[in-house]
């Protein structure tokens, strides 16, 4: 399979409000293969979202290079954000249609009913985001990211803030949609189980500045159900990630409760 995105020794720094230069990521290199889902997992502030913005082309790297190739036509991304980021002034239908308006794809609206069905929101086409539950809003965001047949699907902690039960359902639905449509995707998360559940390959990032400290290939069936999270092969991966993130050793807390066991 061809590589759609290649990052070579990419670093990115920002100037904070205080004037201090903050290095978000340092020397990040990886390739994204066609039809694979790559997950980036790491602690908060390790530059995961920055990597997505760099792939999307909305930010430029401070150093290093990024190559983007499309399997067909022009390289274009689908973007899912952690808080849905729907346009509250547009209906479900209008929100899903947005990328096609920007790209000037006329006549592609015929695809929308099919997508609405795929995300189980039939009958809600004319509803405004405020009338939808959090889970339904996430589904609309997924449909909006898929409607224009993107080269790569970028997912920035898409289920943060969703309750555990809804999250498992949404994760399973998203995995099914991605695999059915043979999409290439990159998922950013700080949820270790989610990284394994949705990914074919997991890149573990260190605390900031973010650097890749481990690459783990996930050998699980493409179509996954929540029950897989209880299996030994699944927990083996999550344990390996926790190990790389130093979560299996006693945490060096600055202060322990007085009645905590020694």
């Amino acid at each position, binding site marked *: 399979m061809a590589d759609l995105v290649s990052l070579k020794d990419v670093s990115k720094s920002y100037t904070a409000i205080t004037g201090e230069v903050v290095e978000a990521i340092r020397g990040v290199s990886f390739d994204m293969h066609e039809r694979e889902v790559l997950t980036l997992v790491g602690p908060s502030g390790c530059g995961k979202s920055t990597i997505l913005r760099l792939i999307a082309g909305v930010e430029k790297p401070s150093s290093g290079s990024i190559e983007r190739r499309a399997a067909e036509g022009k390289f*274009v991304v689908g973007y899912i954000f952690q808080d849905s980021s729907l346009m509250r002034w547009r209906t479900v239908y209008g929100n899903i249609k947005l990328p096609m308006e920007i790209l000037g794809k006329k006549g592609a609206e015929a695809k929308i009913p099919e997508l609405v069905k795929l995300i189980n929101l039939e009958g809600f086409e004319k509803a405004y985001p*405020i009338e939808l539950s959090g889970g339904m809003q996430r589904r609309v965001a997924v449909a909006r990211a898929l409607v224009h047949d993107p080269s790569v699907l970028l997912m920035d902690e898409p289920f943060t803030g969703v309750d555990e039960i809804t999250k498992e359902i949404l994760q399973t639905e998203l995995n099914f949609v991605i695999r059915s449509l043979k999409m290439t995707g990159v998922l950013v998360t700080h949820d270790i189980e989610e990284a394994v559940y949705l990914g074919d390959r997991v890149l573990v990032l260190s605390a900031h500045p973010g650097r890749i400290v481990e690459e783990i290939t996930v050998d699980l069936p493409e179509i996954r159900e929540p029950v897989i999270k209880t299996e030994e092969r699944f927990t083996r991966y999550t344990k390996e990630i926790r190990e790389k993130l130093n979560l299996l050793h006693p945490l060096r807390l600055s202060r322990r409760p007085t009645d905590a066991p020694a």
Partner: protein
Amino acid sequence: MQNKVVRNLRDQASVLGSLVVGVVVWQVIVDYGIIPSFLLPAPTEIVAAIFSSRVNWWANIFATLREAIAGFVLGTALGLLLAVAVTASGIVRKIVMPYIVAIQVLPMVAIAPIIYILVGFNDLSRIILTSLLSFFPVVVGTATGLADVDVNLVYLLKSLGASESLIFYKVRLPNSLPHLFVSLRIAITGATVGAIVAEFVSSNIGLGFLMTTALTSFNIDLTYAAGFILTVIGLLLYGLVEGVGRASMPWFRRR
């Protein structure tokens, strides 16, 4: 649906009820001489003044309305242009904002003579004065709405290759609508006040002119009558702007 209708009716009834109670209390206070009627005429005396005086109410109402609406439209147009300019450019914001704030903090009676000297004692000067009270909330409110957008939406559109002007049209403009309509509600009341003050200073027609002339001749009933009509006009204009806002933003009304 039925619950919504019942709730609406209950809300309307409570508003009307409180109004009726207020008017009755007012009437009783004056009738029992707690406040003398030469200071505060009873509601019945004010209504009687409206119908018994020889004042051409329609001509005066039309004059004030014309000034208020023209000033509101001018102030809003100016406010929108300035809001776009200060949002688009940091330099423009730094240069223009001090002047905008300075115009706002200066009392209108201090600006009025300058405007009258520059433009003359005519309708245009009164409309300009009225617009000065309208444009400030529009600039501040709209600029806030244009700037305070979900940054992810901007990223999304940029990732699809959208230009800044397309981002403005698709994201910033609709995002600013709730802020704009809040500003317009303040602006329309400002315009009504502006028209009256402009008439206080220089006019020979309008409700403001009527109030000053009635007051100087100690016709307290007529002063209050003009004030009452002005209040009704202010409420109607405010309601109109609010209604347009609701109709333009069904997604906001459902909140």
